[in-house]
């Protein structure tokens, strides 16, 4: 990391994340460097899949139990709740919503991704654990859609997160989302959906792209 970068980071670092000194009850000075002390600085590793029947069986289980992170961006987030209503009933395909990234395996980017939201999307994605999949919903995630020349949204989601399935449309109906889930299941069962490992392999490229957009990068390089 260059020196220039450090200055740049410091400028945007939240006050509580800067190096500071805490005075203890007995008057001792405790030097705190939050980015090193409070956050895990390790980089992720490629987690090799098993081989043969074992991996096929596990992939079947992963495909039949898709836990979606309740994370909504853009207009698509309003298309997702009907999925779990009696009319579309995504539960019968093993799809369920989870409120925490730790437990979920699918991140749906449901529409345009503002620069501000991109940061949150990256944090959420990185907090999810290894077999994890990204569904890009709507035209905005493919090429920017109607926001392609906006000053504040990204155009190709592919440059920032490894996308497994695109669902085109503006907005796609819940049926289309269900079809997207089916497509994702096919990919997982075939063993093609290794987005998490791809992300780790090309981490430098993804990080460079992300930092090009997010000027105020005030978090660790990988948010565990």
């Amino acid at each position: 990391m260059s020196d220039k970068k450090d200055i740049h980071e410091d400028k945007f670092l939240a006050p509580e994340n800067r190096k500071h000194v805490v005075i203890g009850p007995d008057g001792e000075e405790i030097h705190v460097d939050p980015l090193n002390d409070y956050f895990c600085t390790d980089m992720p590793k490629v987690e090799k899949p098993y081989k043969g029947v074992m991996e096929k069986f596990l992939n079947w289980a992963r495909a039949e139990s898709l836990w979606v992170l309740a994370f909504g961006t853009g207009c698509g987030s309003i298309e997702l709740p009907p999925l779990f209503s009696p009319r579309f009933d995504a539960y019968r395909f093993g799809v369920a919503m989870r409120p925490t990234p730790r437990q979920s395996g699918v991140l749906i980017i449901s529409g345009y991704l503002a620069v501000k939201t991109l940061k949150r999307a990256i944090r959420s994605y990185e907090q999810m654990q290894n077999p994890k999949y990204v569904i890009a919903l709507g035209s905005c995630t493919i090429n920017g859609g109607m926001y392609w020349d906006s000053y504040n949204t990204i155009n190709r989601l592919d440059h920032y997160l490894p996308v497994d399935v695109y669902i085109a449309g503006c907005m796609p109906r819940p049926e289309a989302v269900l079809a997207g889930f089916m497509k994702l299941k096919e990919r997982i069962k075939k063993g093609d959906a290794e987005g998490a490992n791809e992300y780790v392999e090309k981490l430098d490229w993804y990080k460079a792209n992300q930092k090009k957009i997010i000027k105020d990068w005030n978090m660790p390089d990988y948010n565990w």
Partner: protein
Amino acid sequence: MSLFTRILFVLLGLFITLNWGLIMSGIIRKIIARLSMRRGIKVVQPYINLIKNFSIRSQLTHGVMFYLGPVFRLSGGVGVFLFMPMIYGSIYWTNFSFTGDLILISYFLFFGMLGMALGAGEGGHPYSAIGIGRGLAQFTAIEVPMTLAIISIAIQYNSLSITEIVAAQQGGIMNWTMVTNPFATIAAMLAFLGMMGHSPFNVVMAPQENPIGPPTEYHGTFLGVLQTNRAILHVVEAVLFMNLFFGGATNWGILILKTFLIYFYTVFVGMVFPRFRVDQSIPWFFKIPLVFGILAIVLLII
């Protein structure tokens, strides 16, 4: 029966209990889905979720207690099972029950919660801390009417052995505690609602309120262990109430039927009533179930 055979039967019983717990939660969720005009999950979905959680490749930890939290929780569930006589009159399915097992079991019911509180606390997520605070406060409020009901039963049957309590209830529905000591039954069954964590009292883990309470940071195998424990614990708690109030079971068929009905009662109440806030649920336990619990003891003594 040798100790080895006994251990084998305990393990087999644990296996049956785990499977029945998973299938039961699948069936219940299917019923809920049909009630709300949906097809709903597959009945085997809990199994698939379990396999999926155990197949998560990368896992992270926040420290030793974070590891031990689910382990404590599971040992709480298995501990209740180990000392619970499952089938009355069978030498194979009484597990390691002894004369004072009722006391030990009511201790084990709380033990898992405490372990989980320590583990989830180390996770460091604010929602975990909120969930733990609410969970422990609510469970303490549940324990009071529950304990009163247990004391009432102990006075009534002059015993703290579950096997003896079940034995005293044999010979028809009129001998069940449900009939002979209705106030204790009401107090305990109201406390049971809170114990199972369905709707009126599910503010501890409600995804919409504090996503999702204590297990917020738990994932992969940790979550798998918690799910395993939940499957076991739900059945075993239902078995406890079956033994104390509804005449016990003399074979697995009756056990499955009774535990299903007892568990379904909490789900039914949950489907009908909306969620309490924690500052509503705790006073509620100190009002209605507590009064029934005190009545149960006072009437017995008089």
